[in-house]
């Protein structure tokens, strides 16, 4: 599968309620092998809001732009791969007890 097929897919919870769209995919780069393992998906209300990543970084300048873009991206969260039940061409389905994590990068 290629990344852009996953991006912008709608995300549904276990009972089929739409809770957002995939805005980004998080990977972990292994220090030794350099392999990039998928960690989870970032979910937001709109697909376009988050490209500058202010809600995921500690960058706060210029303050007005940062605040505006954070506000645009409010309500976005990270879901770990283990909480993803299935990926279908028309959407990503999560497990019943999926957990929301802060989208912030470590």
């Amino acid at each position, binding site marked *: 599968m290629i990344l852009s097929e996953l991006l912008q897919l709608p995300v549904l919870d276990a009972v089929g309620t739409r809770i957002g769209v995939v805005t980004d995919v998080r990977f972990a780069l292994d220090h030794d092998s350099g392999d990039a393992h998928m960690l989870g998906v970032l979910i937001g209300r709109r697909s376009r809001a988050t*490209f*500058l990543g202010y809600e995921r970084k500690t*960058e706060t*300048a*210029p*303050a*007005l*732009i940062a605040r505006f873009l954070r506000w645009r991206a409010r309500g976005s969260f990270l879901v770990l791969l283990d909480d993803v039940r299935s990926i279908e061409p028309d959407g990503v389905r999560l497990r019943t007890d999926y957990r929301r994590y802060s989208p912030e990068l470590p």
Partner: protein
Amino acid sequence: MKAVLGLALGVLTAIGGFVDIGDLVTSSVVGSRFGLTLAWVIIIGVVGICLFAQMSGRVAAISGRATFEIIRERLGARVGFANLVASFLINLMTLTAEVGGIALSLQLATSLQPTLWIPVAAIAVWLVIWRVKFSILENVTGLLGLALIVFAVAVFLLHPDWQSLGGQLLLQSPSQGSETPATYWYFAIALFGSAMTPYEVFFFSSGAVEEHWTRKDLGQSRVNVLVGFPLGALLSIAISVTAAIVLLPHQIQVTSLSQVLLPVAQAGGTIAAIVALLGFVAATFGAALETTLSSGYSLAQYFGWSWGKFRRPAKAARFHLTMIICLVVGAGVLLTGVDPVQITEYSVVFSAIALPLTYLPILIVANDRDYMGDKVNGRVTNFFGLVFLVIIVIASVAAIPLMIISAAGS
């Protein structure tokens, strides 16, 4: 001497970017119609371009990324592409106008038809890009462009009524003012657009990469910006003033390049006129080089192609092919007989529309520690950056409506 030549990138960017054919004509038009009442726009414009050119130069020196790479990285493929299309078309229009400007300047020097000069000019621009080293290119055109200082000298030789000029600076409109507000603001945006034309930052940041600037060169980058652009603004204002002194009282509204020359001739005679002509040729030639390179830079950086004059052409084949095609298209358009002066008048207004998508990514990346480490923007820079972003957005939104209402300033 080395320190002086080190300023060349800034001076060339400013001479070719600030005082190109569009600015020669627009400044003169504005001076002949509004006196100095619009000079404040040039001053605001120069502060803006200094601010953002400095940022883009710093980003290029620290991260090695030129402006259009940043635009794509921050705006994404789609919005970046929209910006690419807009910038590229404006750039092509400006390139066409500059090649036409070289031809018009040579016509003034020889009275041979511009149609004869157009192919010569286009081929000369290509040859310089093809064969001449970046540093020679910037030094020669930058130094020759300094001939335009003759406009500043002319202001003094004309013994103007300083008090009246000062009054115009404070927005007391000169007596012949029969212009509508829409026209006034239309020209304000044209001047602002011509001061902040996006290709100046494309060129300046890519030039910094061409010259392999690093963290060590930050100081030089700053001096380049702070000397080059204000110099350009000064020349631009001087051109306006000469037009305001000589042409405005006769109600001569400037419509062609030949009229720009008349005040200098009146002030300093044949020699001054010849020096000014040399300046015209150098400035339009410099701008033609800049816009041609910028067309290659923007396309190559968006698509990730190999680019740069420091590489031999075969090592940056798509980059060079782009520039050849642009020059051929520009020359072709000119040979249909369009008036280069008219093209510039539209291209500066269209530039105003494309400004936000260029300057927002620069501001954001200049704050990103991944790119900049500890050299991120300070608070003051960010404050002014935001202020200018607001001005830029207003200018960009107002450009088209004002163009329609004022019938493009007629």
